[in-house]
């Protein structure tokens, strides 16, 4: 769809979130005032969106599985939270310390992203997944065992909470910033290089793409955005504890990305909103022993969706019965309409075939342009 020269599809998410934030902001400013439960929910939703979108960068676009995303968030939350805890007493709980905390938190997470990114250059697939998982657990464990004066140890770090009447607006502005960074990155030539690496690393290398650089860059970007979410998290809580940022939380973020459709940013956003809302709403409905049903539901939905989307045998079925086909049925074909945006880089499905990934020579120097002469 085109609106003048601007492709509206590319900006629809900015528009929706921006308008929603403005409306909510004005409502809040006009004195209507939201209940705390609403404000808490909005903050959580914003944090989830940032996390899901940033993880989508690695999982959906780079095609690598990261199970330690919460670890980067943890670093952002602790480092940024510590910065704000130090600054707020002297500077007041305003925007300036918040911005400084954001910068510090993002930078710290970015550094760790680089540290994890380096093994990521040598490992692929399941190995990388396990390394990121290990990283997340290490971070969790390190912060948990700090002394009380530095990062609070088991007691958790006491962080200043930003005034809840405004924090959700800042949070959604940060969502917009995240979207701007991620979508611009993906729609640039860098983004196309990243998806090329995902689809066939060796072919990408052969065409002269600097695989090392792009993998590292994507990892760092994703990590620093997760760090930003962490800082925001520290600002929305009085006390943060690293136990929260374990493997389970990483999986929860992954579920959002998967449910949204890997490599589909808008899908991730919708899934993040939905899951976060369900997480707060379901426990009020499913009380007592029923509370477990929530996890059961998530697990089932995850399995069914992944199988449906990926099973090779269901491909024909998917092609006939999908949302797009359904819409097309109801839409008149317009011969004047030229589909000029065939290459939608942000919705390319992951299609790495089994043996490409599973038979990996782990020594990078051997990964150079094909020496055996393509037998495939």
């Amino acid at each position, binding site marked *: 769809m085109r609106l003048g020269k601007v492709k509206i599809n590319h900006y629809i998410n900015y528009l929706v979130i921006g308008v929603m934030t403005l409306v909510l902001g004005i409502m809040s400013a006009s004195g209507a005032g939201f209940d705390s439960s609403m404000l808490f929910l909005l903050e959580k939703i914003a944090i989830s969106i940032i996390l899901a979108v940033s993880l989508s960068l690695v999982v959906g676009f780079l095609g690598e599985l990261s199970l330690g995303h919460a670890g980067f968030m943890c670093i952002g939350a602790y480092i940024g939270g510590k910065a704000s805890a130090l600054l707020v007493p002297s500077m007041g709980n305003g925007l300036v310390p918040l911005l400084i905390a954001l910068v510090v938190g993002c930078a710290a997470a970015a550094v760790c992203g680089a540290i994890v990114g380096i093994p990521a250059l*040598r*490992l692929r697939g399941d190995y990388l997944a396990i390394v990121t998982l290990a990283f997340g657990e290490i971070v969790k464990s390190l912060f948990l065992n700090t002394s009380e004066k530095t990062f609070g140890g088991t007691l958790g770090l006491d962080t200043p909470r930003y005034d809840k009447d405004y924090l959700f607006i800042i949070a959604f502005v940060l969502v917009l910033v995240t979207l701007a960074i991620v979508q611009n990155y993906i729609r640039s030539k860098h983004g196309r290089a990243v998806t090329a690496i995902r689809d066939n690393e060796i072919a990408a290398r052969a065409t002269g793409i600097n695989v090392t650089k792009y993998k590292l860059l994507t990892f760092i970007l994703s990590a620093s955005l997760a760090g930003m979410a962490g800082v925001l998290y520290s600002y929305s809580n009085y006390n943060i504890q690293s136990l929260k940022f374990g493997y389970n939380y990483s999986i929860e973020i992954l579920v959002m990305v998967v449910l949204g459709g890997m490599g589909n940013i808008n899908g991730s956003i919708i899934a993040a909103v939905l899951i976060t809302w369900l997480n707060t709403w379901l426990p009020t409905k499913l009380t007592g022993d029923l509370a*477990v049903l929530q*996890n059961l539901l998530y*697990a089932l939905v995850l399995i069914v969706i992944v199988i449906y989307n990926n099973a090779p045998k269901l491909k024909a079925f998917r092609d006939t019965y999908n949302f797009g086909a359904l819409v097309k049925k109801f839409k008149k074909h317009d011969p004047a309409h030229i589909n000029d945006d065939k290459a939608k880089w942000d919705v390319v499905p992951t299609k790495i075939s*089994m043996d490409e990934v599973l*038979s990996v020579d782990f020594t990078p120097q051997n990964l150079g342009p094909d020496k055996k002469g393509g037998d495939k």
Partner: protein
Amino acid sequence: MEVIVSTLINGLSLGGIYAMIALGYTMVYGIAKMLNFAHGDIIMVGGYTIFVAMAANNPLLAVLAAIIVCVVLGVTIEKVAYRPLRGASPLAVLITAIGVSYLLQSLAQIVFGSAPKMVTVYEFGSVEFLGTTMQVSSLVTLAVTVVVMTVLTLFVKCTRLGRAMIAVSEDRDAAQLMGINVNGIITITFAIGSSLAALAGLFYLLKAPNVSFTMGAMPGIKAFTAAVIGGIGSIPGAMLGGILLGVVESISYKITAIAPYTDAIEFSILILILLVKPTGFLGKKRREKV
């Protein structure tokens, strides 16, 4: 001296459990080429089966029941959740496995509640050894692990079925062309892996008589770590990695200053080894085909 001996023995028996789980991981990974994240939770199912079956107060019967339940469960999971994804991206398979893991955990929580249950399977008692008291169950664990490893190695090397497994793991398409039933082999692999998980569940209960719905999660992850350290796909590698990890954990808990960092230390070892030797100690190097 006493301290060293008791720490080592503890480490070895813990390592035996890790090795047992890692063997299952390594078999499945080597042949089905997938990381079965739900493997740890099969241990948990084995634990609960023993818990239920112990109502009859017959340990042997309970273990047998656990093995049967786990094998049936493992094969079913493979059929329902993993087989449709054969040929899909490994990412999809891995995420499904995570989903299965969560599914098993929440099912267990619904059926048995979230509070841990205590069950005493069998009391082996303890013996004096080099001036330290040691649990007989630790020795049993270690002995059984060694036996299982040997039998598995011989099985894979010397039987037709075992060689078929190697063939599938080397090149699935070629194996199929040679008339090997690839799906059948993978099913058998899952059955073996699951029965090992049931045994691991038993040894866990011998060590700590406690069943809970999360009991498989951490051991599962650590055992995978062990399998990777030893070189995934390699049976002696799994044994080596498991024992190494168990001993490291035991030593680390012994030293007060670093005890709280035990998990961090174990995972750091994993990252370091993968950086230095990405295929683990005994893993085979694979070439990438284009």
